């Protein structure tokens, strides 16, 4: 009864990702067996530092998307709810708590489960849900938890030395924690190398996103939701840079040949928010009408990275993160960002996903939708959890997409 839930990809390079991902998870298991320290991390924990210190990073939110894409989330979520975690809380967290505390009640875990952790690293500055979640895991698994912090900077990039000093201090705390756990010393040179590679990949990613503005769109969100994976989880590696070089070359070739996602591109959409991991084929749905989802808000690369801000790599990381922000951190910045994307990528309509259990993004979606409609840009809001497939009504969503497409085509006529 469950069909394939993957999106149809347009690029060959994208198809490499599942293999890379599987290999990554296998590697973490091997690392664990070899006696390397394994850290379970929340997204945005600087894995370049962990990598430089030979600590294996396992990013739980990614594993949650893997579970969700196999439509196993509801089983894990139900298990998590059984041990007391409300349906309100982040779907990713509930799933992982189900996986940890109610293994018997849960489905079989993908990739044979996660490598056993030695400690937990969480940053809760972007998402308040993570601290409670990681604290609960720390107790359940009886392993140490280190909380990493950074300033919020809702007004965006800043030249504040205070913010930079605090960020630097927190990074050094993280290093000190890792030194203690591993019994080894931090080598700045190793980090410097990884930061250099990360910058290079990041710049290629920026160029890729510029290329995506072409008409017809050479690479849309159906590909990018998968193709972004190395940038998030293989940061600072040669493997990552090589992947994006190949991706860029493929896109350039497609542009040269005028190859788009559909034979005749009739309209271009943007996806705002997290996609529904249990049905990524939804991203391809509008293709039958000549539409493409050309770009997404969440993983879009916005700026070329600043050059190294200091010789000391930790100070460099701190200054860079204060002086340049990867994501808009207030509604005002988010609105500007969205409108900018719509203009740059020649977008005709926006689909906004309203994921109730990801309040970090959810809180802004209505105002973003309103801002677009006020400017005559058609929108469609879809309310489903990003991971828990119990909240998804396929026929309902597709009916609404049909109506949205009708509206778009009528507007263009």
């Amino acid at each position: 009864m469950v069909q394939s839930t993957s999106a149809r990809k347009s690029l060959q390079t994208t198809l490499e990702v599942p293999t890379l991902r599987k290999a990554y998870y296998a590697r973490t298991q091997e690392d664990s067996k070899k006696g390397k320290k394994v850290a379970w991390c929340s997204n945005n924990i600087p894995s370049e530092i962990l990598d430089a210190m030979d600590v294996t990073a396992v990013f739980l939110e990614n594993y949650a998307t893997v579970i969700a894409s196999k439509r196993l989330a509801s089983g894990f979520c139900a298990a998590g709810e059984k041990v007391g975690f409300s349906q309100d809380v982040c779907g990713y967290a509930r799933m992982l708590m189900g996986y940890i505390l109610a293994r018997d009640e849960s489905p079989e875990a993908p990739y044979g489960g996660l490598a056993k952790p030695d400690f937990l690293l969480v940053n809760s500055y972007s998402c308040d849900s993570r601290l409670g979640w990681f604290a609960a895991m720390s107790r359940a698994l009886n392993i140490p938890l280190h909380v990493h912090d950074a300033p919020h900077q809702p007004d965006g990039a800043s030249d504040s030395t205070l913010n930079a000093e605090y960020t630097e201090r927190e990074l050094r705390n993280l290093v000190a924690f890792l030194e203690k756990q591993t019994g080894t010393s931090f080598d700045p040179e190793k980090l410097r190398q990884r930061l250099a590679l990360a910058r290079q990949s990041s710049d290629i990613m920026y160029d890729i996103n510029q290329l995506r503005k072409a008409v017809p769109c050479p690479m849309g969100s159906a590909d990018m939701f998968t193709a972004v994976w190395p940038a998030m989880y293989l940061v600072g590696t040669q493997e990552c840079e090589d992947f994006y070089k190949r991706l860029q070359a493929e896109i350039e070739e497609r542009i040269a040949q005028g190859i788009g996602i559909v034979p005749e591109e009739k309209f271009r959409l943007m996806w705002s928010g997290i996609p529904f991991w249990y049905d990524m084929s939804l991203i391809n749905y509008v293709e039958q009408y000549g539409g493409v989802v050309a770009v997404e808000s969440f993983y879009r690369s916005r700026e070329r990275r600043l050059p190294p801000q200091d010789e000391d790599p930790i100070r460099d990381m701190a200054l860079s993160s204060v002086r340049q922000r990867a994501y808009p951190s207030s509604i005002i910045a988010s609105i500007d960002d969205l409108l900018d994307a719509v203009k740059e990528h020649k977008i005709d309509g926006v689909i906004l996903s309203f994921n109730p259990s990801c309040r970090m993004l959810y809180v802004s979606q209505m105002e973003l939708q309103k801002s677009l409609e006020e400017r005559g840009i058609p929108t469609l809001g879809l309310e489903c959890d990003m991971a828990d497939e119990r909240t998804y009504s396929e026929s309902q969503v597709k009916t609404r997409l049909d109506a949205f497409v009708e509206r778009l085509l009528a507007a263009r006529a």
Partner: protein
Amino acid sequence: MLVAGIDVGARNVSAMILKDGDMLSCYVLTSGEEGATVSRRAVQEALKKTDFDFADLQYIVATGCGRNSVPFAHRQSTEVVSQARGAFHLYPSARTVINLGAESSRAIRLGENGRVEAFTKNDKCAAGSGLFLETMSTLLEVPIEQMGELSLKADGFEEVSSICAVFAESEVISHIHRGVPKGHILAGLHRAVAGRILEMLGTTGIKGDVVVTGGVARNAAIIKELEKKTRLSTIVPPEPQIVGALGAALIAQDRAAKS
């Protein structure tokens, strides 16, 4: 000492008469009239089977959602406490009581001495309630007493996936139109209902022995599904609808003895 317990539910009113702590007589009738009138009638009907009159009753406790509309009751007791009391009296090994009423259901955890330790209630969602099953009975044109049996006989089930009763109803209608056998639909429905009931248990937890009370407990298919999902066997009293009234009567007994 003669006491009475009355359970004024959304659908039925039960009255239980105790004489010196023993069950003397009980009566269940379907309510439809105003609370005070129907409660009095239930008690009177129960008394008809005995040698006693209304005036002989020394203490009356009312429970159920309509407990505040029984003016002649000496005291009110909440469903949680009266259900627990009644179930524990019948089965001292009871550690979980699942009460499935017409409109609401509750799960109650008991301690070794029968004291309530925790409870959760579901009165927001219709799925799993007696009234919901009555709606399904009408829709499927199967008398409610036969729903369980028909379902147990079925050799398969058609999934009813909706969490919400309203959506479940439309799902069932579409199954009927597609010609799915009634037994299959009922089997799927009962699975879903049992699932909803268990979700409600939440952090109350479930420990054996499990006693299931209330009118819906008569549905053998739902009971079977509960047992399958919890991997525990359940006890269903021969008269699951009178447990609340029994508990209320026992509380009346305690109160009468104290005064």
